[in-house]
């Protein structure tokens, strides 16, 4: 080995070592930036409101207290919203999958005639729609306004997810397998339910998560279509709690010192209560997604294959 060659080798490893240092430093920063706001939410929610509002809570809980949570637990609309959201999420996701899985499977089978036309009908809706107002009027005509069904039925079939799921079926459930089952005398429905579905738990898991998160986090359709507060989902209640001003009336002239201090305390509590509400409302989703994470890359890869 010539000297020159050895030199480049050393230089190369040195450059690579520098690369690693820079890369890991930047990644550490990214990780901190991503996680800190969420971490701060948790520690603020368990800290003394006075310490939080003074900015003394930064790395760990100060003056541990359940006060914020006690206030939240007494707030009935939040729990009603929670119950509603669980209903919308469970029923809605089941309905999403009921539309998604059979249709995607059928569109993946070569035996089905007119697949091109059907795909055209579906895909067109990805690029063009009636828009906010005609959609609203459509709900009105269907009598869905202010009904709990409006959170479940409309547009439950996601064309984008169908494309991913269809490609999954087409690649992971080969025609030969269906053919073999047919020779054994299995009907098409049986092939789907007893062969294709059990082999597709990965895609079912990812799709269930996508739709469930969508239901759990959505607020806008409720804002558009629901006016009865009893039917409000969690996010709309959350919005009301978070957007309300902490303006607890403080009147310097007529209040006694004690009353003033109490008002100020309540005002601070309203502030930390918001952190607790954010935590309570988002914890289920944040606790759930890591379990299906390994399928995300796979799901995206499948979707990017042109079908």
């Amino acid at each position, binding site marked *: 080995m010539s000297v020159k060659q050895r030199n480049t*080798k050393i230089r*190369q490893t040195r450059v690579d070592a520098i*690369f690693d240092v820079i*890369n*890991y430093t930047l*990644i550490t920063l*990214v*990780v901190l*930036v*991503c*996680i800190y706001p*969420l971490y*701060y939410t948790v520690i603020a929610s368990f800290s003394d409101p006075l310490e939080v*509002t*003074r*900015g003394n809570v930064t790395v760990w809980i100060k003056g541990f207290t359940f006060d914020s949570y006690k206030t939240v637990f007494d707030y009935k609309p939040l729990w009603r919203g929670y119950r509603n959201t669980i209903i919308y999420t469970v029923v809605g996701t089941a309905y999403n999958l009921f539309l998604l899985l*059979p*249709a995607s499977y059928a*569109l993946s089978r070569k*035996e*089905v*005639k007119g697949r091109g036309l059907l795909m055209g*009908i*579906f895909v067109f*809706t990805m*690029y*063009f*729609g*009636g*828009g*906010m*107002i*005609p*959609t609203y009027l*459509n709900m009105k005509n269907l009598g869905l306004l202010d009904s709990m069904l409006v959170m479940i039925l409309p547009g*439950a*079939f996601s064309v984008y997810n169908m494309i991913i799921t269809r490609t999954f079926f087409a690649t992971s459930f080969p025609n030969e397998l269906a053919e073999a089952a047919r020779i054994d005398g299995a*009907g*098409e*429905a049986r092939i*789907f339910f007893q062969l294709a579905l059990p082999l597709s738990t990965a895609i079912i898991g990812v799709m269930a998560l996508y739709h469930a998160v969508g239901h*759990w986090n959505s*607020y*806008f359709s409720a804002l*558009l279509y629901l006016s009865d507060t009893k039917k409000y989902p969690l*996010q709309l209640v*959350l*919005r009301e709690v*978070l*957007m309300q001003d902490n303006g607890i009336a403080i009147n310097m002239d007529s209040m006694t010192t004690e009353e003033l201090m109490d008002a100020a305390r309540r005002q601070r509590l309203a502030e930390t209560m918001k*952190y607790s509400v954010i935590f309570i*409302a988002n914890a289920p989703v944040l606790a759930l*997604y*890591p379990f299906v*994470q*390994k399928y*995300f*890359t796979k799901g*995206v890869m499948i979707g*990017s294959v042109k079908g």
Partner: protein
Amino acid sequence: MMMKSPVLSARKWKKHLKQFWPLYLFLLPALLDVIIFRYAPMYGLQIAFRDFKIRKGFWGSEWVGLEHFIKFVNAPNFWQLLRNTLSLSVKSLLWGFPVPVILALMLNEIRSSKIKRVVQTITYAPHFLSMVAMVGLINLVLARETGLINHLLVALGFERKNFLIMPSAYQPIYILSGIWQEAGWGSIIYLAALTSVDLQMLEAAQIDGANRFQKIWYIDIPSILPTIVIMLIMRSGSLLSVGYEKVLLLQNDMIRDVSEVISTYNYRMGILQGKYSYTTAIGLFNSVINGIILLAVNKISNIVTETSLW
């Protein structure tokens, strides 16, 4: 065959359906959903050309042609809405688009798969936070008297600022929080594309003495370029439809002038004030422009990079 008699093909159809009818039944619910909830509203688009009155119905309302479109284009706030919408989405694209690409390239260089997985889990987390919660959090940490950011500013010797009602702070808040929330999630597609980089090419580069910067620049990036271009085309196809759910949450009266975009204006005028025909026309105008931009970018990309959506 053109000569085939219809009777025969009907018989063939019968035979075909006898075996495969469940597959067609499988498609029915999805088809009904799309017809009732996606195509029916398109039928309602005609009110953009009418003076729609609820009691007169779609057909009973008077036909006014392009009147609403002309009215919108000549409206005093037209240029302001268009400028706000375009500047917010173009800036979001310019600042936000490269971040997931860079993040994916960085993650791809982590050798330990365990660390990589943990980093991925953490960078995906903000994506799963609801929009309402995120905007609530922004309001809390930016609050003038009690927010963490202002405490930090004071500690560093600066003055407190009320960012939430500062017109100049609105766009940076929107864009940065968007990057925070979606960069990790957006990196998935590039990570997926990076798994298909030719290993032999990387080995050959290694033997030729390329360092890791060079491998990224000359091998990784060119390999995922088609994916980058496709994503760019798709993003530019929605330049006029910014995330109005977020704008609506971030808005307040003090920053209305800089934050009002076409879609939030539409919500206010249409849903809250009931100007159905006018806002439907605005919505249609919006999606037609979006379609034109998408077609144009796709065409340009097809010529320049030979990559296109279709």
